[in-house]
């Protein structure tokens, strides 16, 4: 079976879970005999043996602050922030045009690729690639799968959904022969907001390659460290809930001073969060590391005594599996996809600051709680493999592909 896949980012050039998921999915699929041509909008210099990568050589857009809009997680809030920060309103409008135009230029190139590259199925990842999928399908008449890793409703935190992005997402979902999504949580959002039938949507839970996080550079039980570390790791945007994390931190520190809160990541709320820590009078207990990747990312998971994912709306939340695979207990928002499959964790409603603080305090005060979460979590994540996810994706492929191209699982 030959798959023509359209992506937007890929490790190590990723800014979040989308790239991680694309890597896990394509690797596991190729190990099962699926041949993948993976299309990316720009040359990232990727040298993965399991993939044939095609770059579209789209003209590179000029950077600086505008650059932040070129990540996979454009949302209307960050968009508006940048929009307002650009003094020349006309320029800002031009910019908006540029981004959407890039998505459509990508689609034009996709059409050409689809007529040149042999394939049985088209598989797209999130809205930036949906127009490409539709154009490719038009060109080759092959079945289209739109994979929804997050929706505009998640990225905007429910406020100010960008109508253009919404339209693109809606078309991609409605035109697709099948829709893949990362959780039941997101499936319901798609049904409610994009009006597709439940029977057209398959849930493909994300997974984790546990051995990637088994490095033992740091031990939590280092004697020199009596202070507990509570970690937030994610983009500093509204839908990730960093503000609630700080409010909970304040309540924790009122009861226990020996806790340090580490915030890893960057985003449009960067300055706001730094100011909020100062306003709450806890700036000396909050550390900002900026965006981490590679060895630093793995180490910060390991060092932490608790990972908190307080997202307002989290389609999946792959970082919490990374923390669990690192042996770190996790406290996750109930408004997340991962909470549907992970049992050995603590859960909280994203808005319930008291309960968040209660649970953070329980972990930092009672080592036995963290021990149980950590050891049980480490065995539980063995279940969440990309190999299983690939099996589920192949089932979805088999449902729409020409029957003689089906792959046995």
């Amino acid at each position, binding site marked *: 079976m030959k798959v023509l896949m359209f992506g937007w980012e890929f490790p190590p050039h990723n800014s979040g879970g989308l790239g991680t998921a694309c890597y896990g999915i394509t690797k596991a699929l190729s190990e099962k005999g699926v041949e993948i041509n993976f299309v990316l909008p720009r040359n990232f210099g990727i040298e993965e043996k399991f993939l044939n990568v095609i770059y579209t050589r789209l003209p590179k857009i000029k950077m600086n602050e505008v650059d932040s809009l070129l990540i996979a997680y454009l949302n209307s809030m960050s968009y508006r922030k940048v929009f307002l920060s650009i003094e020349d309103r006309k320029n800002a409008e031009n910019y908006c045009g540029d981004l959407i135009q890039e998505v459509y230029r990508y689609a034009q190139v996709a059409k050409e690729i689809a007529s040149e590259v042999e394939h049985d199925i088209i598989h797209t990842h999130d809205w930036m690639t949906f127009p490409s999928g539709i154009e490719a399908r038009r060109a080759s008449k092959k079945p289209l799968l739109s994979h929804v890793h997050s929706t505009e409703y998640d990225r905007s935190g429910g406020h100010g959904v960008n109508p253009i992005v919404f339209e693109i997402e809606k078309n991609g979902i409605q035109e697709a022969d099948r829709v893949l999504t990362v959780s039941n949580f997101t499936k319901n959002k798609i049904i409610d907001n994009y009006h597709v039938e439940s029977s057209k949507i398959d849930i493909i839970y994300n997974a984790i390659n546990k051995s990637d996080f088994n490095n033992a550079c740091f031990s939590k039980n280092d004697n020199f460290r009596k202070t507990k570390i509570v970690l937030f790791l994610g983009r500093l945007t509204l839908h990730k809930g960093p503000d609630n994390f700080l409010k909970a931190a304040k309540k924790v520190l009122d*009861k226990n001073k020996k806790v340090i809160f580490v915030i890893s990541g960057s985003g449009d709320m960067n300055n706001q969060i730094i100011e909020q820590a100062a306003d709450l009078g806890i700036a000396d207990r909050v550390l900002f590391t900026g965006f981490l990747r590679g060895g630093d990312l793995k180490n910060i998971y390991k060092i932490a005594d608790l990972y908190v994912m307080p997202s307002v709306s989290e389609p999946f939340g792959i970082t919490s599996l990374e923390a669990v695979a690192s042996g770190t207990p996790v406290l996750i928002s109930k408004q997340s996809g991962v909470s549907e499959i992970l049992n050995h964790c603590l859960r909280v409603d994203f808005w319930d600051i008291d309960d968040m603080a209660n649970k953070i305090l329980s972990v930092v005060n009672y080592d036995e709680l963290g021990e149980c979460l950590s050891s049980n979590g480490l065995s539980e994540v063995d279940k969440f493999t990309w190999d299983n996810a690939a099996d589920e994706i192949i089932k979805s492929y088999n449902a729409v592909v020409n029957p003689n191209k089906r792959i046995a699982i």
Partner: protein
Amino acid sequence: MPSICFYFQVHQPYRIKKYSVFDIGQDHKYFDDENLNEKCNRAVIKKVAQKCYIPTTKVLLDLVHRHPEFKISFSFSGTVLEQLEEYSPEALELFQRLVRTGNVEILDETYYHSLSFFYSDEEFVRQVKMHREKVKKLFNYKPKVFRNTELSYNNELGVLVEKLGYDGIITEGWERYMGDRSPNFVYRPKGANKIKLLLKNYKLSDDVAFRFSNKGWAEYPLYASKFTQWINSINGSGQTINLFMDYETFGEHQWEDSGIFNFLRALPTEVLKHPDNNFKTPSEVIASYDCVDDMDIHNVLTWADTERDLSAWTGNSMQKSSLKKIYELEEDVINSEDISIQEDWRKLQTSDHFYYMCTKWFSDGDVHKYFSPYDSPYEAFISFINVLNDFRFRLDVVKSNL
């Protein structure tokens, strides 16, 4: 020839409400959930009374009238008796009527359905005495046979319970200790002189308690006639068939539409069709049959799970730490002579609190989940440990005022 010996366990704990770190020092009512949701103690008691205690006890009253030879035994935890007095006097009255028929034996246990025997002999004996007094007060009855929480047992318990004056004690009939011996005879606990040991026939008991409504079970559906054939087939190779189970089997674990009440209604008639069969209470079994052998149970045996040990209560570090912390307070609590301190301390000893923290099979989402009022074992631990902190704070205040 076998005697059928029924024992039903009636127990409900005082569940701890969702209790946050911010409640410490503010709220000392650990067991009253003012939201009165469907998992609060009052609601659970009322539901179980409606589904099980009231209808099942009515069936048994009827059976005793129709078959004067029909005998049964009960063990009631002190915590369920207290809650019945408060939330379901109707169920309690039915139990009292049933006991007055004289066809019922009541067993003793620890008042707070605790694991105190494994942590403090003194506290264990105090709770046994409290239970004796409660049974005397509510039923005007003096138990002669003892059962420990979750049928937990070892040689030392047999010896101690003999010293307390009991004629018998009951536990699980488990191959690991029985070897090729049968649970259908009476044994002597190793190290004891007079007391007799009755062993649960877990195969036949679990056919009713666990498998009755399981449509995947080869023997489904189970009728009283078929069950009686199994009993009759034991004839000659056993003297007593001990059918020990939770009373909630009837109507709560096995729902009414499974036919469990019809099964119970029909069973005495079927059993008594065979002239050699009879029903006996544990004391009658003890009086009728001699011990055939010593039984050496050196490790802790329980009736729980496939492991038949205490691991569902003491298996992980949250459980171990919670139990250690609660029993560490014993001396201060007893010295405080403060009634509400002592009562709360004992309510916190009820084994269910530690069972809710069990993580053994949590990934598979099994039976343990069904019985827990919490979303996860971790939530159970968090509420417990916060309550314990508030309790310690109260205890310190009382201590400093002494």
